[in-house]
Structures are given as structure tokens and as C-alpha cells.
């Protein structure tokens, strides 16, 4: 497949890549595109947009709640694609869609890939689509639409399986920082650092990003020492939720500044 924005990002930047996750249709139905555009302006390197689902088993309370609110707001796959239709007029950074398999399956795999390509989506993460099923049934389809499909690895994932995932996927490898669902943890432990080092020394083909439990400047910096960067989700959702007084732009900028350790403007 051709190189897309994800490949180019990692060609140009091998450290401190900041990826931010947020849920489509949250806090308000039509906030999706504005949050995306503000994230780019504030200095995020890549964005992951969550496709809300009624039963998000891999997610902690914060993202679960945002999924529920977004669904109540009336978000749907169709709506997400119509919100993202014009995003490439405003936004240049890579955009990844992350969602559970069932909504994608019901939408139709081919239709999903086609819409992703039309909108300029660069990759997807479908955590509960087994990699063997992906390789056998869907990989050619994804490749034909220039869509990367990224997979997760955890501290429990065997070396053999990591190699298999590395061989069969492109874009980046999503390193789950510890054995857990999404959501902020206190600190990064010694044991986690050992795991980060172990994976680093495997010299994988794909760049690695560390996610789950990354919430602030300290955890972002630590994760970035052992990989190309980090993915932040729950902490950003909390920031979006927190104050109704600030505009979305203010919330996004102050959050990104906090994570990057830059002085808060204003």
C-alpha cells in the first residue's frame, strides 16, 4: 500500500509523537470536527477518533461514559462520516478511527473502508477483531483503500505473537502500557519500564506508541523515552467534560500545553 500521513508522520518525527483520542459526538453531537481541528492547532501530531459503542469492554468508566453520552446525542457511523467528510479541508495530521468490531461489521467492511478513504482517514484500530480473521478475510480490502489497521500489544503478549502482529500490520504498534482497561493510573512502574525496554529492544518494523494510563506531562515524557510517543484518551475526555465555561478551543489548548509541558497561554 502507498505511504499515507501516518507513515509520513513517523518519517519526520521519531520521538514525542503526541496522539490524542476523543469520542465522536462528545460532549455535543457536532463537536467532533471542531475538537479535531483544535487538536491540530494546539500541536497534537495525530488524532484517534472513537466510534461510540453500547458495550465497550476494553474501556474504563471515563470512555464508557463518553460513549453513552455520544450515543444519546445521536451519533452513528453514518453521522461520523458525514461529520468528517470535509475534514481534509481543515486538518492535515493523520486521523485514525478506533471502534469495536460490531458497528463496523453492521456498517459493512467494504463500505467502511470506502468511507474512510473518502474522508481521508489514514488508519483504524478495531481492538476486538482477531488478527487471524483480519489477515485472512479483510487485510486485502483494507490495503486496497490505503488504510492501516493497527493492533494492540500488552505486557502479556508473547514475543512470537508480537512478531506476527508486526509482520502483518502497518502504521504503528499500540503498546498497552499495562494489563488494564483504559483510564488514568497513578504512575509508571518499574515493571512497566522493563516491558517498555523489552519491546524497544525487539527492533520491530513498525514504530511504537504507548497508551493506557498516559495522562500528563510526566507520563507522556516517560512513555516517549521508550517509544515514538504516546496516546492519551481518558485524561483528555475528562478535560473536555470538566468545565462548561471554557470554549472547546480553550479546553483543547490548555490540555495539550499541560501534556507538552508548555506554558499555558492566556
Amino acid at each position, binding site marked *: 500500500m502507498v505511504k499515507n500521513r501516518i507513515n509520513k508522520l513517523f518519517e519526520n518525527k521519531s520521538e514525542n509523537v503526541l496522539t490524542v483520542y476523543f469520542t465522536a459526538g462528545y460532549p455535543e453531537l457536532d463537536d467532533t470536527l471542531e475538537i479535531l481541528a483544535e487538536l491540530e492547532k494546539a500541536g497534537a501530531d495525530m488524532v484517534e477518533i472513537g466510534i461510540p*459503542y*453500547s*458495550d*465497550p*469492554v*476494553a474501556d*474504563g*468508566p471515563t470512555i*464508557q461514559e463518553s460513549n*453513552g453520552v455520544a*450515543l444519546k446525542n445521536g451519533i*452513528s*457511523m*453514518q453521522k461520523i462520516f458525514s461529520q468528517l467528510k470535509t475534514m481534509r479541508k481543515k486538518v492535515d495530521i493523520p486521523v485514525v478511527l478506533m471502534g*469495536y*468490531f*460490531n*458497528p*463496523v*461489521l*453492521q*456498517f459493512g467492511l467494504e463500505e467502511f473502508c470506502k468511507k474512510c478513504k473518502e474522508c481521508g482517514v489514514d488508519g483504524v484500530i478495531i*481492538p*476486538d*477483531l*482477531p488478527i*487471524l*480473521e483480519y489477515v485472512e478475510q479483510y487485510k486485502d480490502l483494507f490495503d486496497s483503500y490505503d488504510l492501516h489497521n493497527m*493492533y*494492540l*500489544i*500488552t505486557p*502479556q*503478549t*508473547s514475543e512470537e*505473537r508480537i512478531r506476527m502482529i508486526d509482520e502483518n500490520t502497518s502504521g504503528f504498534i499500540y503498546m*498497552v502500557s499495562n*494489563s*488494564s*482497561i483504559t483510564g488514568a493510573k497513578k504512575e509508571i512502574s518499574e515493571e512497566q519500564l522493563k516491558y517498555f525496554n523489552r519491546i524497544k529492544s525487539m527492533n520491530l518494523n513498525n514504530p511504537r506508541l504507548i497508551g493506557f494510563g498516559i495522562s500528563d506531562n510526566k507520563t507522556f515524557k516517560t512513555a516517549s523515552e521508550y517509544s515514538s510517543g504516546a496516546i492519551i484518551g481518558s485524561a483528555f475526555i475528562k478535560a473536555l467534560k470538566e468545565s462548561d465555561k471554557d470554549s472547546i478551543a480553550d479546553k483543547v489548548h490548555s490540555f495539550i500545553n499541560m501534556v507538552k509541558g508548555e506554558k499555558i497561554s492566556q
Partner: protein
Amino acid sequence: MSKYAVDERGYYGKFGGAFIPEMLYPNVEELKNNYLEIIGDPDFQEEFRALLKDYVGRPTPLYFAKRLSEKYGAKIYLKREDLCHTGAHKVNNTIGQILLAKRLGKKKIIAETGAGQHGVATATVCALAGLECKVYMGAVDMERQKPNVERMRILGAEVIPAESGSRTLKDATNEAMRHWINNPQDTHYIIGSVVGPHPYPDMVTRFQAVISEEVKKQLKEAEGRENPDYVVACVGGGSNAAGIYYHYLDNPDVKIIAAEAAGKGVESGETAATTFKGTPGVLHGSMTLLMQTTDGQVVEPYSISAGLDYPGIGPLHAHLFETGRAKFIAVDDENSMKAGIELSRLEGIIPAVESAHAFSALNQLDLNENDVVVINLSGRGDKDLQTYINWGKY
């Protein structure tokens, strides 16, 4: 090899598999790589069989229901799973899984429960094995099924309310899966039905298969034949049904009948009749039939019976439906309650509301007087007294 057995990848035809995030993969893989060997081990079988006999009270009787038979004009036998310790078939599976968990070196047990029967059966075997037990239960269900909550607590289990989503069985299952993701090494998750990622549907089916194993012997003694004309069971997730169907799946002379909960009616919007209203999709780690919106969001089911109040069915049952091997019948609240009262009056047995659905299915069968029918009386009605009282028409 049976046409209805699971394949190496965990599929029954196009249903099944293990659609799980990577965080669950090691736990499920460990189970997948070990369950057949552990279950096949003679020491395991000896311990399992001894507990089924002395602790659960197996074999459960196969009872010829004379007055019910007269009423419906057929020879009707009841498989008395309601006489199992803890009051339902659920304990067959929890005994099996607790022994397996011990052999895997697990120290802690988690489970989900809807009506509380599986939770009680899990709390029971945890007490028996001396393992720590946490049971996730929808906050709404905890309110509806207070006596079972207290039973679990008396048995030493911690009952954790699932406050996410609709706060019922499907959410309790989600919470249990999340807990397992967070505690991958020392914890075993005892799923209560033939649902979930492979190998759960097959493993639970194997533990419940003792039901039809016994029926074959008992029917041979009673009727001089191993095979009935009909086996009938209710299907929520489908574990009691899988157990009573198992040894008959490859015998096409045995008609397989599955009673689903229609709730307030198949077309009422308040139903749990999955094969009538469901479409293929992924729920709790397996490809199966489930009730969902066109956008792939899981729809909240409804049934008067908390044990049938589930938006999907096990992948084996989806396969039996798809291939036409089983005939699915929808039974609404009203008719299930009537059937429950009828069994109480004709045979002196108050069935669980779940099992009452299976009895109501008799009205939809075209029976001859020589037909031999075996109905799985999967649980007793003690837990449902309040439901009977609220319904009131007796």
C-alpha cells in the same frame, strides 16, 4: 466428528470465534490451550463425577409426568435439574470450572449473574474450594433479585453492582470482562452460559452435557429407547439447552425445540426472542445472533424471566437455528406464567420462570400419543415467588 461440534478455531459454522481485545487474549489462550487436556484427565473426571454425585445430587431424576402427559396427549418426561443443589442446572458448570481453575493455579474467581442463579452456583463452589469470589450483577437486577444477593453474601462472595449501561446482565458481563482484563494472572472468570469467546461455549457445553448423558440411560430404562422424539428446553444464553441437546445433536430423529422468551411479544419492542429479532453480530466475544440496531448497538432485551433476559444466544444455538437443526419457539410472559401455574397444579412442581417457557412450548407442538417428549426442568421456582405473586393470576 459431529456436524455440531466446535472447530479448532472455535466456530460452529459461521458463529463463535474469539472476538476479544488483546488484553484478554492471554487469559483466553491459556484456557483454550488447556481445557481439553484438563477435562480429559481421569483424575479430573473422577473428582468432577464424585462432586456431581455427592454434592450436586446427580443423577437427577427423569420423571414421567403422568397428568401433564394426559393433558397434552404424549409421554412427557421431566429432567429434574431443579433438584440440583442450589436449585438449577447452573451448578454443573460451576463445579467443572472451579476444578479447572484450581488446576490452572488460579486463586480468585469472578462471575457475572443475571437472576442470581449462576452467581449463587459460583459462590457455592468457591466456598467449597476455598477461593475468593466476586460476582458482578446489574444494579437493576440486584434490586429485582434481593434474596439471591443475600444468598451469595452468606456464601462469602462479594456482590459488585454493575452500574454501567443498562445495569443488567449484559453490563454485568462487560464489568466481569473488564475485571479480568485488569487481573489477568491470578483470576479465572466463570462464565455462566454457553456464551463468550471460544473456548467458553464449548467448555460450558461439555460440563452441562451430563444432562443428556443421563437422559439417554434413564430413558432407555423407562421406555426401552435412548432417544425421545422431542427434547425441549428454554434458551437465554442456552446452557441448559446445550446440556440436554448435546448427545442428541447428531441424531436427526430427535426433534430439538428451543423456547425463547418473547417478553411482551416478539413485535412489542420488549422481547428477548433473539432468533426472531436478532441478526448476526459480535457480542461478548463471539459471533452470534443478537438483538441490535442497524448501527450495531446492542439492544436491551426484556423478559419477565431474568435468566432469559439476554440480547444474544450462544453460538452453538445460532448455528442450530441457522442450519434448521433446532426449532425455535417464542413464548411470551403471559403464556410462560400460565405454563408455570399449570405445572404446579398438575404435577406439584413450581418451576423457575425460565423453565416455564419450555413447558409453554408444548402448546405449539403437534404431538401424538406415542411421542416421547423430554423437557428440561432447568430450575425450581422458589426464587421466582415474587414474580408469580406480582403476576397474580392463580
